[in-house]
């Protein structure tokens, strides 16, 4: 093991050289875990005599090109598996299938040194970057990925936006299960604890077919770390504190694999947080406190050719919404947004109390996943049940009113069978059948009716690769039926509606490696999204925003046709990485809420503005670019740029509510490993967001209530280090967001009409890892 470590150290010092050679042989391989025959990404592949390591990709594949004939030693290692060494005689192109056995030791040190991040594809967030972003919400963690922005309601309700698309157009996949909450609402954030994630990634194209035909904006995957592979029990605790809202956070994981029952593994995880009212640079916002309590439990059994996993998670949050942003009628709304800053009645309280208005959301997920191999065929059965309860507490006239004014309950059951046919060096593929049943019920104020929904779907995709080429293609079909039922107070039955939608999705992808480290990819995909119940049948007051929403039962499914081009380059010396994606997304029947200023709704509270769901054709085009330069070994400069242009083709105008262009520059300095401090890194990030000037023209009447706010520039910083105190490593992180306490408002925050964004926030996090003794003996170099 020592050997391996030294090699990595050498690599870390940047001692690589490039040899000119005319050799042409290729060595490719596929690595899987012998425990469950799953593909094993992240295994380090070291080929003797070549100063270059590879890490297996998401499918467990690796490839060396342009090798000379000869005898090589191949070394395969993974943090959780025993290292495998093989001697290879190369006299023709060769493909290897390699099984790794779960190891007894965790090689933590090795993993850290071997990590040379660069810019990952697909876009993702893991490791230290994820840890630094985990403190607030899933949405905020996701927004660190280039191309992902945030749609906010205040600073506590955050939804990811990918290439301008969000809510029901962007699937969120929680540990393999499609998250089914009330995600249609702009103020309904994904109900997932960010601490569950070991990795957050964004997939588009062929991979998204697994999850639905309606992923017009793609799918966000929230994946936990793999369960413990070595025997023994380990624990990890994270404690955090944020200065802005005096938020306390505690998160802990305990996991193990019993010595005497080594094919069984388990994990318990929990997170709690409590924050007081948030503060902007000039004033504190009353009733913006939050409290969250989440937990999950996993149990898994792994035999050769068989594995099963049972997973349960609960997410529970209570979020206060700024009182002054909850207005009565349209006049009140106009008065409130005309003010430069909120009335002092609604600012200045430094309190953990959560009053009205607020949201209380609970999401339960129970999942069982069982996989078995028959020969080289792999089968997986996934069963899941989710129960989402969203209660919205409005400002009420009387303190005697205790209940929620809107209470939505959604039960979703889903079943899925996947068959992965035997993979060869070139071809792999899967076929799946999926079914889902949903029941939505509510009490309180009417907004959407009760409904039951049923979906049946089938999908298939194949991936082929040969030499420098990679081709993928897939198809998915879903049939969805929705039956709605509305019974008014006093048991008056109103018209019930039934809907039938057939939706088709297809995706193709071609990748070509021009040089080692330089890849170009082209993708085309079609996705179809059936209208949601709220788009069809909403009819009611959207409290707090002085709007009255009206659905349209004649809406048709929207269909998107997306093309994208990506080029990814990593120089051999790892001194330069460039990733550029350009996309073009044409969406027919794009459904949106259109303001109807000419047709206001008169109520006893005064006038409400009407918005009606309607369809247009849209075209979204953009570029995401990221460049990482490492001029000196400890120094990394990362530039990220995201651009989006969104047109309404029928009105020949811009589309409202799209993220503006943004640019960020990060400078990171990594210190040399010391005896006591390791993995020490200081990063400064300057983030600029331009003013959104591409908004609909107002010649035909007002479309927005206030002009988009000006652009802004923020400075963020992150410092982290790992201290070895006795046997246990302690990671300490200090993050500062909006360090200069800049006053700004963001175009995509619904509260921008009322208040400035959050001011400076310093957060401290301390992570302690407790590893069993047995697994620790291998790490001392």
């Amino acid at each position: 093991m020592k050997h391996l470590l030294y090699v990595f150290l050498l690599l870390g010092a940047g001692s690589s050289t490039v040899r000119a050679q005319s050799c042409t042989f290729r060595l490719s391989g596929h690595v899987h875990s012998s425990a469950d025959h799953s593909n094993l990404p992240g295994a380090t592949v070291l080929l003797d005599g070549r100063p270059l390591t590879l890490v297996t990709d998401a499918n467990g594949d690796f490839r060396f090109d342009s090798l000379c004939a000869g005898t090589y030693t191949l070394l395969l290692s993974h943090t959780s598996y025993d290292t495998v060494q093989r001697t290879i005689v190369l006299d023709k192109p060769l493909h290897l299938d390699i099984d790794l056995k779960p190891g007894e030791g965790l090689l933590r040190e090795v993993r850290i040194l071997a990590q040379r991040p660069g810019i990952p594809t697909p876009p993702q967030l893991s490791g230290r970057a994820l840890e630094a972003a985990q403190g607030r919400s899933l949405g905020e963690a996701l927004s660190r990925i280039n191309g992902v922005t945030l749609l906010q309601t205040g600073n506590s309700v955050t939804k990811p936006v990918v290439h301008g698309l969000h809510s029901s157009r962007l699937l969120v996949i929680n540990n393999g299960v499609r998250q089914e909450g009330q995600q249609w609402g702009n103020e309904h954030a994904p109900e997932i604890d960010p601490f569950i994630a070991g990795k957050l990634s964004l997939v588009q194209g062929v991979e998204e077919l697994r999850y639905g035909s309606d992923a017009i904006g793609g799918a966000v995957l929230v994946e936990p770390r793999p369960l413990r592979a070595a025997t023994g029990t380990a624990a990890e605790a994270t404690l955090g504190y944020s200065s802005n809202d005096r938020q306390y956070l505690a998160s802990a994981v305990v996991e193990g694999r019993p010595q005497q029952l080594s094919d069984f593994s388990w994990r318990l995880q929990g997170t709690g947080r409590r924050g007081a009212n948030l503060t902007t640079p000039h004033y504190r916002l009353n009733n913006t406190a939050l409290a969250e309590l989440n937990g999950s439990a996993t149990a898994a059994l792994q035999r050769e050719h068989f594995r099963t996993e049972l997973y349960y998670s609960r997410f529970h949050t209570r979020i206060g919404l700024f009182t002054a942003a909850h207005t009565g009628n349209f006049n009140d709304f106009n008065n409130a947004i005309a003010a430069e800053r909120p009335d002092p009645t609604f600012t200045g309280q430094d309190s953990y109390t959560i009053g009205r208005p607020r949201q209380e959301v609970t999401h339960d997920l129970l999942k069982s996943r069982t996989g078995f191999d028959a020969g080289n065929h792999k089968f997986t059965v996934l069963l899941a049940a989710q129960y989402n309860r969203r209660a919205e507490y409005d400002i009420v006239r009387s303190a005697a009113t205790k209940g929620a004014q809107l209470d939505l309950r959604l039960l979703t059951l889903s079943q899925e069978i996947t068959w992965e046919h035997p993979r060869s060096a070139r071809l792999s593929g899967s076929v799946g059948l999926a079914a889902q049943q949903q029941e939505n019920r509510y009490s309180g104020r009417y907004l959407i009716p009760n409904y039951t929904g049923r979906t049946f779907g089938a999908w298939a995709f194949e991936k082929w690769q040969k030499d420098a080429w990679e081709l993928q293609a897939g198809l998915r079909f879903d049939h969805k039926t929705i039956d709605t039922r509305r019974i008014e107070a006093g048991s008056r039955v109103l018209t019930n509606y039934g809907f039938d939608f057939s939706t088709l999705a297809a995706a193709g992808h071609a990748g070509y490696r021009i040089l080692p480290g330089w890849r170009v990819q082209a993708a085309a995909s079609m996705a179809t999204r059936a209208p949601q119940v709220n788009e069809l049948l909403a009819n009611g007051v959207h409290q707090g925003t002085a709007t009255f929403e009206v659905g349209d039962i004649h809406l048709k499914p929207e269909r998107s046709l997306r093309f994208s081009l990506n080029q990814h380059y990593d120089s051999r010396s790892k001194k330069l990485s460039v990733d550029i994606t350009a996309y073009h997304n044409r969406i027919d029947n794009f459904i949106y809420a259109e303001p109807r200023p000419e047709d206001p709704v008169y109520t006893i509270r005064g006038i409400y503005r009407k918005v009606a769901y309607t369809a247009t054709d849209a075209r979204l085009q953009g570029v995401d670019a990221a460049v990482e330069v490492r001029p000196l070994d400890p120094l990394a400069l990362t530039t990220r740029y995201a651009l989006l242009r969104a047109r309404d083709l029928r009105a020949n105008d811009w589309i409202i509510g799209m993220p503006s262009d943004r640019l960020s520059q990060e400078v990171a300095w990594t210190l040399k490993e010391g005896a006591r401090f390791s993995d020490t890194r200081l990063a400064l990030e300057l983030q600029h967001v331009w003013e959104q000037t591409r908004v609909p023209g107002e010649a035909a009447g007002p479309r927005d209530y206030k002009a988009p706010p000006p652009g802004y520039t923020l400075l963020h910083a992150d410092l982290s280090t790992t201290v070895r105190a006795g046997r246990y490593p302690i990671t300490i992180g200090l993050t500062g967001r909006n360090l200069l306490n800049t006053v700004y408002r963001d175009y995509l925050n619904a509260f921008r009409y009322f208040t400035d964004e959050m001011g400076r926030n310093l957060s401290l996090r301390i992570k302690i890892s407790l590893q069993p003794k047995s697994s620790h003996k291998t790490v001392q170099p």
Partner: protein
Amino acid sequence: MKQRFLKFGLLAFGAAALTLASCKKDNDDGETNDEEVITTLELTFTPQGGGTALTFDYDDPDGPGGSNPTTDAISLAPNTTYNVSARILNKLANPDEDLTGEVEEESEAHRFYYVPAGNVTVTNLDTDGAGLPLGLASTWTTGAAGAATVQVTLRHYPGNPPNKAANDPVNSPKSATDIEASFPVTIQ
């Protein structure tokens, strides 16, 4: 062995799904009354010095959406002083629910405004516990015959504390609208 685990897993899952499914039977079918809805503002006019009480209302019996609210034309005698009391109702409840008590109980977080135009004056609003105007009761005095309007607004202070003050305007940022009704008044 494999089979047994599979069966066990499925069984456990089925049982759990059933447990979940059985939780949802509470609080069933359809909407309950929105306890926040006000459908009706009723003003009762009693002439000082005796006479028949008159009642006029602003009414939206189907709640927000649906049909627009209707407003009675208030018909008063010239040069007369009336004691006026306001009542608010939710007619979507069965029987009708009188919400006036809620406003009385939280008088320090509510306030009626009466803004007349024409030959009517509104004075003498009753007060809340802190001595600030409430307006459930008021005195209306008419002048010579003619047409007038009175805008009646009920405002609600959501803050904690409400910070209600005597000089708060009708569109104060501290309060939000519960009722906004404009009554035509005929003095004849």
